């Protein structure tokens, strides 16, 4: 519980209306999209100016109050679950697109700008901001940077980190700091913008970003390739890239997911198919035609039983409809959806799928897997009911096993969802003691009182 005088101090900075301390309001900020237990904050504040953000951070530090920044709260690793008794700082009022510069192809934005709104504003100016996490309609750019979010276009266009040129932020004392530049090249000082990427609110409170923009591709072609099993699909993925074609999207769906999508969205997928790939190539029209043909040929040579190339925008949309429906179709099958993002080198996808199969059997779990085959980023999705404690216990065991398997195959704990609370316990498994210690020292130096999103990434 914070005292009345501290509450008053926050209110004098952000205004009475922007401080919430009613039980019901605090409960609204006790959870995020991760399936973890809620924790009640003691106060929720919603600054509407940058100045106020700095003052809020300083107030927290001066009073030793843990502070958890919340964008849209769509992260899947518990990153916005507050610390007990801590403060939640909402960024969604800081939603100005300050500049979209067409000449130098960059944009300056505030942290609370919604990703899809930004991408649309950029597209309206004839430019392109590629990172497109599945949550982009709701997620904020600040959340994207803090999680280093990726999307369907990661394979060819990279992820959020590839577009962050500069980050302005408040340090734990509430001082306003700048890093990076609007120039393409910038080696002034430490590479602080990239230090901030993926920091999940543990090092500073970010306020504005300079983001790189690129010219949009002139043409694109989408297709759906159907395979009898996972092996043939994975072989095709490797062969496409070995043949020096880098599709902008290369998505994978297993048999279970195909069945779920067909059952719910009815987009005409063959439910007996072992797996399918959704592929899109883009770029110059000539190159697109050539690459599409190559991809088609490679898939056929590697055992694809049917390949459908979208002839126009309507058909292209149909291809993506299937992919977009994946999570929702799975989510409708059971009450609780545990979406993971274990990632392996793409050549190891068959081995990972085999491991998932074994895990599902061993722990008696229903797992549907889809994801970004091009970058080995799979989304094994466990369907369960979190109210069934026995079942949920098996789920937790299964999740442990999934990460162990990914690491064994030379993969990583998280391709895009971050570590947060959910995976901090595995950190040493992927790295080692020294690396975790290094990060802890860094954190200690920047946040001596350990108030910036404590417990996230590095544990307590």
């Amino acid at each position, binding site marked *: 519980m914070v005292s009345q005088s501290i509450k008053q101090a926050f209110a004098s900075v952000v205004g009475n209306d922007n401080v919430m301390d009613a039980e*019901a309001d605090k409960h609204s900020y006790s959870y995020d999209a991760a399936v973890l237990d809620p924790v009640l904050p003691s106060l929720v504040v919603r600054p509407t100016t940058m100045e106020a953000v700095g003052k809020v951070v300083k107030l927290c530090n001066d009073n030793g109050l843990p502070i958890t920044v919340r964008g849209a709260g769509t992260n899947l690793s518990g990153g916005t679950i507050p610390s007990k008794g801590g403060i939640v700082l909402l960024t969604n009022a800081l939603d100005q697109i300050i500049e979209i510069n067409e000449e130098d192809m960059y944009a300056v934005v505030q942290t609370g700008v919604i990703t899809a709104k930004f991408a649309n504003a950029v597209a309206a100016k004839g430019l392109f901001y590629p990172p497109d996490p599945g949550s982009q309609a709701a997620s904020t750019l600040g959340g994207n940077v803090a999680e280093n979010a990726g999307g369907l276009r990661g394979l060819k266009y990279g992820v959020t980190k590839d577009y962050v040129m500069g980050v302005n932020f408040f340090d734990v004392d509430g001082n306003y700091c700048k890093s990076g530049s609007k120039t393409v090249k910038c080696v002034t000082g430490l590479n602080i913008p990239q230090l901030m990427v993926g920091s999940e609110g543990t090092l500073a409170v970010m306020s504005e970003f300079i983001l790189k923009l690129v010219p949009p591709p002139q043409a694109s072609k989408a297709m759906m390739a159907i395979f009898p099993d996972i092996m043939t699909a994975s072989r095709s993925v490797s062969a496409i890239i070995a043949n020096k074609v880098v599709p902008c999207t290369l998505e994978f769906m297993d048999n279970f997911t195909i069945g779920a999508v067909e059952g719910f969205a009815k987009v005409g997928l063959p439910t007996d198919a072992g797996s399918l790939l959704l592929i899109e190539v883009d770029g110059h029209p000539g190159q697109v035609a050539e690459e599409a043909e190559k991809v088609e040929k490679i898939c056929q040579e590697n055992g694809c039983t049917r390949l459908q190339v979208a002839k126009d925008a309507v058909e292209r949309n149909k291809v993506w409809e299937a992919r977009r429906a994946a999570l929702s179709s799975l989510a409708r099958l059971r009450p609780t959806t545990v979406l993971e993002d274990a990632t392996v080198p793409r050549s190891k996808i068959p081995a990972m799928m085999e491991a998932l199969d074994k895990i599902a059997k061993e722990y008696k779990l229903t797992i549907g897997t889809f994801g970004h085959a091009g970058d080995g980023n799979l989304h094994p999705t466990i369907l369960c009911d979190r109210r069934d404690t026995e079942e949920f216990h098996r789920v937790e065991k299964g999740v442990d096993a999934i990460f162990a398997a990914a690491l064994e195959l030379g993969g990583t704990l998280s391709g895009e969802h971050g570590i947060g609370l959910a995976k901090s316990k595995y950190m040493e498994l992927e790295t080692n003691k020294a690396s975790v210690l290094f990060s802890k020292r860094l954190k200690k130096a920047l946040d001596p009182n350990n108030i910036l999103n404590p417990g996230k990434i590095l544990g307590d």
Partner: protein
Amino acid sequence: MADLNQMLKMLGELDDQLVNCMRCGMCQSVCPLFAETGRESDVARGKIALLEFLSHEMLKDAKAVKDRLDKCLLCGSCAAACPSGVKVVDIFLKARAIITAYIGLSPVKKAIFRGMLTKPALFNNLLALGTKFQGFFTSPVNDIIGSSCSKLLSPLLGDRHLLSLADKPLRSIGNLNTAPGKSGLKVAFFYGCVVDKMFTGVGEAILKVFKHHGVGVYMPIDQVCCGVPSLASGDMKSFEDLVRMNLKLFGKGDFDYIITPCGTCTSAFHHVWPLMGTGLSQAERDQIEMLAGKAMDINAFIVDILGVSVVEPAAGAKKVTIHDPCHLKKSLGVSGQVRTVLKANPNLNVVEMSGSDVCCGCGGSFNLQHYSVSTKIGKKKRDSIAATGADIVAAGCPACMMQIADMMSQAGDRVAIKHPVELYAQTLG
């Protein structure tokens, strides 16, 4: 009054629906209220979480949950966009009934729902009195929209720009019961409160359409409110009273369709009555099921049943833009038919506005309780309409028509607000 434990038990029965929410937050991207306030408790995810915490006794303050639950347009945008298929509006309606049973209905609402809506004779007389005297209290502000404002009543009504009550309600036509004509069809006409008392022109247009196409009409004038406003306030008793009164008139089902000019009324028959009428007898529930199968929006009827289709626009056609009412598009899936109905009039040129299916902010009694947020949402709708440069805006829901009229009138726009069926009826001799 129910005790706390009983309420928790009832909330617990909702649990199966509540747990389907995976807290993904995607509803934030479509909730018109969240867009204004940025508060998690205003969007579906936050409300569902609160209900879950309350039902598991993790949260004590039922009144606070009710306040947050009540702050919702019930527009269904969240449900339509939810990847998990959470039946958000169903949950909210049920939860409102449960929590209201526990806390009790506010005296004002009690007076309106129990004292007026369910006593149609009294209600109609009061309104008739209002109609007589409205001219003394209000002054006209916009002749195209037909709105006025009232300095005298502003403590009650704020700065709203209101449409007048009709001189004579639609029901003054008297009971209708005509035989099927050339179409071979007979329909029941459920006009709904607002069309009866304010937009009588919409009712007349519909009767003209029926006549033109040779459709027999059964229109009993003892019909009462569909009950959604009572239910939205958690007043289950008034809701069930109203349903029973209507079932007495329509329960025999000796017609092919029951047609309404209002997305909310149609979705009430279609969806809300079957869902909520659990306190009713089996015989009554059978009648409800029958009505659910026959209920149809007038636009859908004109296109899907009467087969009216598009014609070429004539030279000098007026520009009309379309607002897609939430209940019409999001819960009934009627939007293409509205466009066809308008394009069947050669004197109209349809221009789409951006975000035609974004809620106008009315939300029934939401507008009364949260007028300032309601207005903020409504202003955005007004801006989208104004940006099209249209002469007319068509909306297939009388409540939306009222809200849009208020917004356009306050902005001083000279844009007429019409129900699509009025514009279609203009083409009929």
